[in-house]
């Protein structure tokens, strides 16, 4: 890629920052070249974030209806999934899966709540709360 062909499409995700690429100058020599956004990256980043948003809103709806625990909403809200939440708490996957059900979640011990809160960056008491909107 030539230096003057480095895309500068001001990606909103970069919030005014640039990332660094290496590109060739007029003499064909590689040189560091900042890039403040590129269509391809922006599309796939939006897509990945939209997927988490979709999962979180879905979980929010089910939690409001009492079909899922509020933990599931917070898991997706923090861009995690079952595997990642199990890894970051150190719990077995089957136990996390069980805690995603509303009944099991309400019976959770204080210590387990703390571990979930820790992994999700929330206070144990916040795990029960759903925001007004997903």
């Amino acid at each position: 890629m030539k230096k003057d062909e480095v895309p500068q499409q001001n990606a909103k995700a970069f919030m005014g920052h640039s990332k660094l690429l290496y590109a060739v100058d007029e003499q064909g020599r590689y040189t560091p070249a900042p890039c403040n956004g590129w269509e391809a990256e922006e599309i796939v980043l939006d897509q990945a974030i939209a997927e988490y948003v979709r999962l979180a809103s879905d979980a929010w709806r089910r939690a409001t209806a009492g079909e899922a625990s509020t933990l599931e909403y917070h898991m997706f809200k923090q861009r995690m999934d079952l595997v990642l939440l199990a890894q970051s708490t150190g719990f077995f996957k089957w136990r996390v899966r069980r805690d995603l059900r509303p009944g099991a979640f309400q019976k959770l011990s204080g210590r387990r709540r703390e571990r979930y809160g820790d992994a999700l960056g929330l206070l144990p008491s916040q795990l029960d709360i759903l925001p007004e909107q997903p």
Partner: protein
Amino acid sequence: MNAAAATLVPFDHQQSAHCESGVISSLLRHNGLDISEPMAFGISAGLGYAYLPFLKFGGLPLFAYRMPPGWIIRGLTKRLGVEMHMQTFREPAEGTRALDRNLAAGRAVGIQTSAYWLSYFPPDMRFHFNAHNLVVYGKRDDQYLISDPVIDILVECEAGALQKARFTRGVLAPKGLLYYPSRMPAKPDLRSAARKGILFTTGMMMHVPVPIIGTRGVRLVARKIRKLDPRQEAHNKLLLGHIVRMQEEIGTGGAGFRFLYASFLQEAAVLLDKPSLGALADRLTDVGDEWRRFALHAAKMCKGRMDMDYGMLADQLMHCAAGEESIYRELRAEVK
């Protein structure tokens, strides 16, 4: 108490394409060995390709364009004869105390963190990836002063957030890893180190006898894309988007590190006095451009700005694999 206490180690921040090669090259420069990021990447043999279907992220397989985390620091320091002090901690508070002690002793240190909990990262760039690397060069009140190689400016992070980022659990858990060069070599042999790095990378890309590694891995992924079931378009779009993110966004300076490596080859051409490496760098640039076109086409197809065409994407990857293979073969013969 001494509320305005500040420790600060003068540190030259240089933005990099990739966090690990960026941190280690700037730490070595800080300690008196002038080395560029591409050189650090090439010598450590950081380039790679692997399709790892058994490692899932958000239900999607891992596509890696480089060797695993930690490889660049270990490979570079080993080949240059730099001794590294590397320390992990069981207790988060102990990790924070050790960081403070190093700063108080006037030492800038590299640390491994999760990218998600770093408060200075733009929110849309925050994902759970545990092997981010950065340099801490000071502390002012409750804020750590940070030279993060992928960010264009110097940044700060609140102490609590940094401790959380250093002690996340799970895959590649950083365990508070803290590192710095403890002994620098008197006369590092860059020529021999570059040669060894090239031999390793070319061997790895061409001769590992499993179909998911190196250029064979690229071809395998191409065949998988060609065979995607058009009825599963929603899933296919997530998969393609994921591939493009791994290639362009997850810690890369573009085209899955191919431009970074081409830049290394240009430097190596001078270092080893082999102009032919410069020509190979140009060809790798062309292959990198093809990777970028693949990324752009795949992204546009995901967004509906282009008609979905799995065959076209597969052809592009086959083209990349063929181009890289011939480059690595000649490169290996050149330095052998």
